[in-house]
């Protein structure tokens, strides 16, 4: 009889007790997989959001990342089109979007509200931001005519503050690159929501040429590089060091996504603690079951010892039984977790908006192979450890004491 078959037969001796233990291991496994999968899905969603907003890699003047500008566009990039032309030769890059960040006042004549503007290529912006920029009203890309009035897209809360709607004429007031004030009339072409309350209160999107005209500059603040494969981020970052006149630097999205980093840190702690609690529950449950089994089989342990088994061989036998329980639990747990991952998209459940956001997000869970392998290994290891704890003492007790055990 193989060691595993012997272990399986021993596990099946008291079926009800073993089934309960296997279910505890299975539920623990499923809980870890589901909570881990949910955390990973959230991380992926936030990462995607952050990367879509800033680009996979942002190229800007070194001082742009470290200092505050004294005047607008002080750290802007000169001749951005030359750099874009070079970058577009690289077939790993899908888009290079110049962006101009500025701020000022948006006025309806009666009331002025502070805005945070982005001058960008609007059609490309729609493409890269995807579903993270939801249009509430209007057309975000009505086409541009540089000689006509500027079309702007504003956040829904900014529109509400100014009692503006699609077609409303507003005035943009901003400080130019040389420090003087400039104004520009604009018409609202679309009202959008980003899902972020703070952004929706301040957002103004405008074609970059209008933004440059408003700030009286040819510079752009930064270049957002979008890659065909986001796994290339780290590898490509250093390739951009020689661009420009050497005063440029690049940063991956992850170093700029502070919300992503803080949510990840928070979730890691929450789910980490949850994981430890679940792991301890599994451990204690399996220890309890196997300790009962060990107590019932103490005479049998004495017999094995008398015949010539070493204590460690007896412990190994119980560890195999723990492994059998772990494997069975992991199998059922994987089916449960995978079933949940498969069914959730069809149920259409939504998570409530997290702090600072105005829209929720779908309750979905990721099911990466690596997570399953890691959790499965952990559960099996815990069951083996539980068996080791439960059997060690009995395996080392005096043989006569074990043989006399009733």
């Amino acid at each position, binding site marked *: 009889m193989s060691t595993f078959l012997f272990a399986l037969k021993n596990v099946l*001796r008291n079926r009800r007790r073993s089934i309960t233990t296997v279910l505890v291991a299975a539920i623990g496994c499923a809980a870890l997989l589901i909570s881990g999968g949910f955390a990973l899905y959230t991380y992926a969603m936030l990462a995607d959001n952050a990367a879509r907003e800033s680009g996979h890699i942002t190229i800007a003047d070194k001082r742009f990342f470290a200092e505050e500008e004294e005047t607008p566009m002080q750290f802007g990039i000169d001749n951005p089109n030359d750099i874009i032309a070079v970058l577009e030769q690289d077939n790993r890059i899908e888009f290079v979007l110049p962006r101009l960040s500025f701020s000022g006042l948006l006025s309806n004549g009666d009331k002025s509200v502070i805005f945070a503007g982005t001058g960008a290529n609007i059609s490309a912006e729609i493409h890269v931001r995807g579903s993270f920029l939801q249009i509430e009203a209007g057309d975000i890309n009505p086409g541009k005519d540089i000689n006509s009035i500027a079309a702007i897209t504003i956040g829904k809360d900014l529109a509400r503050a100014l009692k503006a709607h699609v077609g409303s004429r507003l005035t943009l007031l901003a400080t130019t690159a040389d420090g003087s004030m400039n104004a520009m009339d604009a018409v609202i072409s679309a009202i959008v929501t980003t899902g972020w309350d703070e952004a929706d209160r301040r957002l103004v999107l405008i074609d970059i040429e209008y933004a440059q005209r408003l700030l009286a500059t040819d510079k752009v603040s930064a270049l957002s590089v979008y890659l065909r494969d986001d796994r290339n981020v780290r590898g490509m970052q250093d390739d951009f060091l020689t661009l420009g006149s050497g005063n440029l630097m690049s940063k991956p999205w992850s170093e700029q996504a502070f919300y992503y980093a803080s949510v990840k840190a928070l979730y890691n702690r929450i789910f980490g603690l949850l994981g430890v609690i679940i792991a301890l529950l599994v451990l204690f449950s399996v220890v309890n079951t196997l300790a009962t089994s060990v107590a019932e089989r103490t005479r*049998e342990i004495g017999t094995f010892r008398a015949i010539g088994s070493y204590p460690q061989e007896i412990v190994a036998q119980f560890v195999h039984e723990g492994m059998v329980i772990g494997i069975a639990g992991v199998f059922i747990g994987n089916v449960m977790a995978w079933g949940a991952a498969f069914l959730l998209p069809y149920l259409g459940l939504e998570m409530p908006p997290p702090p600072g956001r105005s829209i929720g997000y779908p309750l979905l869970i990721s099911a990466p192979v690596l997570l399953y392998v890691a959790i499965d290994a952990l559960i099996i290891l815990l069951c083996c450890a539980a068996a080791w704890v439960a059997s060690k003492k009995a395996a080392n007790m*005096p*043989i006569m004491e074990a*043989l006399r055990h009733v």
Partner: protein
Amino acid sequence: MTETVDYVIDIEGMSKYYALGEDKISAVNKVSLKIPGGAFAAVCGPSGSGKSTLLNICGLLDTFDAGQYHLNKTNVGGLNETERTKIRRKEIGFIFQSYNLIPVMDVFDNVAYPLRLLGKDKLQIKAETAKILEKVGLTKFATRIPDQLSGGQRQRVAIARALVKRPTLVIADEPTANLDTKTAETIVALMKELGNQFSVTFLIATHDERMTRHCDKIYNITDGVLA
């Protein structure tokens, strides 16, 4: 010219004490015992006389506090548990009163277990187990589990398990106590026959006259002292 006798068990002045509160109770008291190889010997005595303790010490299941014990010319007095296990694994077989078979293993696996511990290969295990099962008349019961056997059949399995590795010594503690007269006679006869065939020394603790009738040598023990 003197004849040299090889003793499997050679005990000199052995004592074993148990602590009972502050008192020290002597379970085996200055026992000296020499059992030659191939003997079919019995230790007899009433309950609590120390016969089981003596057997357990002889089978290296228990330790002693004073005296000397040579098992097959090896001084086993100072051995640690690992070393004693190593000797038990190779040289000592056990037959218990309650059979002590492993309930989830079938007859074949119960009997084959000591060979597996010795690391023998599968073919060898299969052949040697089949051979001993044939000797004890259990070939056709090889796939049954202990619960599907009678008391006599279970004890045959225990005998086969004890002898399958061809040990030097077999310790049997009241092997017929749970059996009816007819079965007990058969079991004793089988043990004696196989003992002779394999030149194995049997040391049996018993107060069963059906058993002692077949023994070459009988040692009586009372209050831990050998008569």
